[in-house]
């Protein structure tokens, strides 16, 4: 079904067609004595949305940073479009939970940041910035500073900054974790709409089960100490996903399934005492 949405505008060679956008093999991460995760195998296809979910401390954000090249794996291998990841790469952009906007830059200047670093010309940057600001619904707020706008608007800005570099892989690190519940819902559906307009490979880290089901084509459940892939849930909900999706019986089924998978772990984590 996914193949049907592929178009020839996709700039990949015939040999690359066969390989996944991201290939994670036997990935492990250890900080000093603590093994965070181990033996993670995961292939992520072109234009596939993979949600990664797991209890606090399972290393889902760490894994995302490894995919971005911000952190090196301590074992295993990570390939992006066939090439090993050794640092942040062109074509990959990240949206942060903490927004990560520069407070001394305006909305427009923040959105332009990645383009400037990529060495684009002033005219190209101006056009792209205007387009992306429009896309995320920030038109009219170009010259505001982050401290002048709400958390939801700040994350719209963070999203525009990521989209501006036209990434082939979009990494979302609990992007709506720091905004209130209503704003979160609004942003979720806007993100889905934007994704329909310009689908990319997306890895979405969240600890909201609903969000994982709503966003993902697949949900990767991380569990255990050290954590590893416990289950990969195929989300066979139709796209485009909209508010209506939340009312489908299949949505409730999948949510319950993921919840029961995580519940025991969540309870254990809640009552855990640090030694």
């Amino acid at each position, binding site marked *: 079904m996914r193949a049907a949405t592929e178009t020839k505008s996709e700039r990949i060679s015939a040999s690359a067609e066969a390989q996944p956008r991201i290939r994670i093999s036997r990935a492990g991460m250890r900080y000093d004595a603590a093994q965070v995760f181990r033996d993670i195998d995961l292939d992520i296809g072109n234009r596939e949305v993979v949600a990664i979910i797991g209890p606090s401390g399972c290393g889902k954000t760490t894994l995302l940073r490894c995919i*971005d090249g*911000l952190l090196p794996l301590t074992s295993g291998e990570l390939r992006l479009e066939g090439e090993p990841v050794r*640092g*942040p*790469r*062109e074509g990959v*952009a*990240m949206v*942060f939970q*903490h927004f*990560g906007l*520069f*407070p*001394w830059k305006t909305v427009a200047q923040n959105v332009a*940041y*990645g383009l400037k*670093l*990529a060495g684009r010309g002033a005219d190209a940057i101006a056009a792209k910035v205007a387009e992306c600001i429009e896309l995320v619904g920030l038109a009219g707020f170009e010259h505001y*500073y*982050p*401290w002048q706008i709400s958390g939801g608007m700040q994350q719209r800005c963070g999203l525009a900054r990521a989209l501006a*570099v036209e990434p082939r892989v979009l990494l979302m690190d609990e992007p709506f974790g720091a905004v209130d519940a209503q704003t979160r819902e609004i942003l979720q559906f806007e993100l889905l709409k934007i994704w329909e307009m310009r689908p990319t490979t997306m890895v979405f880290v969240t600890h909201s089960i609903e969000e994982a089901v709503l966003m993902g084509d697949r949900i990767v459940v991380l569990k255990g100490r050290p954590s590893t892939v416990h289950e990969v849930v195929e989300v066979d909900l139709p796209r485009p996903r909209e508010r209506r999706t939340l009312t489908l019986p299949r949505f409730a089924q999948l949510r319950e399934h993921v919840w029961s998978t995580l519940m025991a772990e969540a309870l254990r984590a809640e009552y855990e005492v640090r030694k």
Partner: protein
Amino acid sequence: MSEAGAGALQATSRRRRLAIDSPVVLKAIAGVLLLALWEGVVRAWAPAYVARPTGIARVFAAVITDPQFVAAAGATLGAVALGLTISLVAGTAVGFAMGRIAPVEWSLRYYVNSLFATPMVAILPLLALWFGYNGDTRLAVVVFASFFSIAINAADGARSVPAEFLEVARAFRARPLGMLFEVIVPASLPYLIAGLRLGAGRALVGAVVAEYFVSIPGLGYYILYNSRTFRHDEAFVGVLVLVTTGVGFEAITRWLTRRFLPWHRRT
């Protein structure tokens, strides 16, 4: 007009009539009273050559237009400006290196802190021997007085750049120089301005004290000379210029902060 509206209007006019308790008016009244007290005490008990407000006002115009005084003020303030510039450039470079490169921090921190705590007046005789009884000593004192406060603040600023900003810059593949000028410098600006403010005050003191000690033409020497020749009113005009410079610098840094760092303390 509604009753509430009328009440508000009345309150406004009452506030206008009682403006005598507004900060501006109180400040002016207190100032006039202090000057009057000074004038009265000097007239009643002090010898005629002691400075008093009316005396200072009488000589003010003449002193301020005296080419010798202008040259003296220029020499002192010029040395302060040059010394501060040197300290700002070198202190920021050293401070950033300390704040971002751990081995530099480990090697220098102790010595920078110690030299910051060293009273500049105490080593002034040594600096005079090294640099000679001339303007070089004044410049050296100004740099010594301001360098360490600027370096320490720059180091604190560079060290406390939020990790999230650096992460974003790395994720967007910023190169080291871009990281420095687009992230570390702007994020440390509030600290740099704080260090510059502190350093400027110390630099001004340093310049004046250096002139007292090595007797080179300048505002400090002008004040010293006129005090010793019983021309206290003239000496006091020199003091006023120094005060104005200090206050003016404060005002400039406060304006810079408001103008360019509106994000500071709001994020």
